[in-house]
């Protein structure tokens, strides 16, 4: 026993002995309020669940449970203790080549966790939640293993459901937190995991009552590779053009090395068919994604690039994603882009497009 262990034991015992244990057996038996709620806080769903179960014991539990579910449709009915046998949700969102990792279950604010293997340059996860009614809220989280990055353990979340993560907050030495739309991602870096991992990913949904930690403009994008003729120019800025269903798309990328971003290699503005991009783009280095939204159109460059030329090469993968396409691919109306309208018929210089 080392000195520090002895001091730690003494410390823990001292702290534990100072805890004033209050007997709450009657409350547990009655299934009513938690100790801190006696002071006036509203009863939590524990009480609702217990009441439902008790009523059920009298023969009308099913009705009570149904009512309880309707009262709080977003809350799981029964909080499972962490189950050790993860299963895979039905998911048609990913192309066949993407590895689907086991889904870890969770409820409430915590949707599960998964350690990203350190040997994988990027890892794609499906993280989801399940309650008595089946699977809900599955997210595809792509993590980049970046040992040289400035994250404590080199792990980065780079997109959620194909949406590029654009900002991050840093918490102390152990926690990174990102939000995309209303989906929050926590990466609890843990270099000591066994096997080694770059991070334990925790997916949370930011509640309606709790504002997002950071303001992030959601980028509802797809990343479908588009076949078709593509041409490029490099003056004055790299420009890519391709064709999507007979509609020509011109994408002008402006590199902005001075952009204030957590990610390297920023490309901070874009024109799509002459429409100034409204949302800045982020290029997160090799194996990541660049996404833009210009006017009411959405474009994504699925990039594996570290230079401008490579990024432009990736513009071969440009396409517009409208709501119908999004729904067909992702089926998640929460992140759907706005209705697509016809693009401008000509560029500012008069060049006809489309």
């Amino acid at each position, binding site marked *: 026993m080392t000195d520090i262990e002895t001091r730690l034991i003494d410390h*823990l015992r001292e702290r534990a002995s100072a805890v004033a244990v209050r007997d709450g057996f009657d409350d547990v038996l009655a299934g009513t309020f938690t100790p801190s709620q006696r002071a006036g806080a509203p009863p939590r769903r524990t009480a609702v*669940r217990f009441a439902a179960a008790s009523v059920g014991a009298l023969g009308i539990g099913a009705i009570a449970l149904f009512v309880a579910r309707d009262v709080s449709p977003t809350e799981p009915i029964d909080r499972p203790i962490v189950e050790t046998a993860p299963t895979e949700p039905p998911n048609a969102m990913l192309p066949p080549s993407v590895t689907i990792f086991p889904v870890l279950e969770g409820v409430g604010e915590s949707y599960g966790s998964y350690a990203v293997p350190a040997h994988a340059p990027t890892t794609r996860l499906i993280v989801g939640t399940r309650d008595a009614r089946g699977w809900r809220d599955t997210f595809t989280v792509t993590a980049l293993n970046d040992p040289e990055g400035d994250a404590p353990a080199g792990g980065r979340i780079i997109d959620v459901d194909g949406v590029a993560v654009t900002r991050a907050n840093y918490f*102390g030495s152990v926690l990174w937190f990102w939000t995309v739309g209303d989906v929050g991602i926590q990466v609890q870096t843990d270099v000591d995991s066994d096997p080694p991992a770059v991070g334990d990913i925790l997916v949370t949904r930011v509640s309606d009552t709790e504002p997002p930690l950071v303001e992030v403009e959601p980028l509802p994008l797809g990343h479908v590779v588009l076949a078709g003729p593509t041409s490029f120019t490099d003056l004055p800025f790299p420009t890519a053009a391709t064709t999507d269903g007979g509609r020509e798309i011109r994408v002008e990328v402006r590199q902005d090395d001075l952009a204030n971003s957590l990610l390297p290699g920023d490309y901070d503005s874009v024109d799509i068919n002459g429409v100034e991009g409204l949302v800045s783009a982020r290029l997160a280095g090799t194996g990541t994604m660049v996404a833009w939204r210009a006017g009411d159109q959405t474009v994504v460059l699925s990039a594996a690039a570290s230079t401008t030329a490579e990024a432009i090469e990736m513009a071969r993968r440009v396409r517009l994603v409208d709501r119908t396409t999004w729904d067909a691919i992702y089926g998640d109306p929460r992140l759907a882009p706005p209705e697509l309208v016809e693009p401008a018929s000509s560029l500012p210089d008069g060049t006809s497009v489309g």
Partner: protein
Amino acid sequence: MARALTTAEQESFAAFYALEHASQVRRAALLLGSDNAAHDVVHDAMVEVLLRWTTLELPGGYLNRAVLNGCRDAARRLAVRQRAPNRLAFVGSPGGEPEVLDDVLAELPFNHRAAVVLRYFHGLSTAEIAAALGCAPGSVGVWIDRALKRMREALT
């Protein structure tokens, strides 16, 4: 669906509660740094146990996992709410070394903190800690070593 407990079942649950409640609250308080939060977590876990009292084969093990999971969830909620790493804010802390140890514990990832508490407060073995936390036994020793190293650094 739960059924009403018989008198004998209620008495057996009462004995279980009397045996487990205080130690679970103290453990949860060490993990969360809050007496109230600890009471809430243990209360919820006890309710879950009670609802399954007639079907659980190992209610003690179930309670342990339920409390640990409840603490994990509570710690996350606190972290999100506070937008900063938790500080185990024991009321009336006199400062000095105890407070430093509290800070180090608070900065640890939950599993590391739980491993330390289970080892040095409850005296569990590595295998028992791994089983309680649902992790590989190899992780436990590393977590504890890392925590002790941080404490040494903080106290020197």
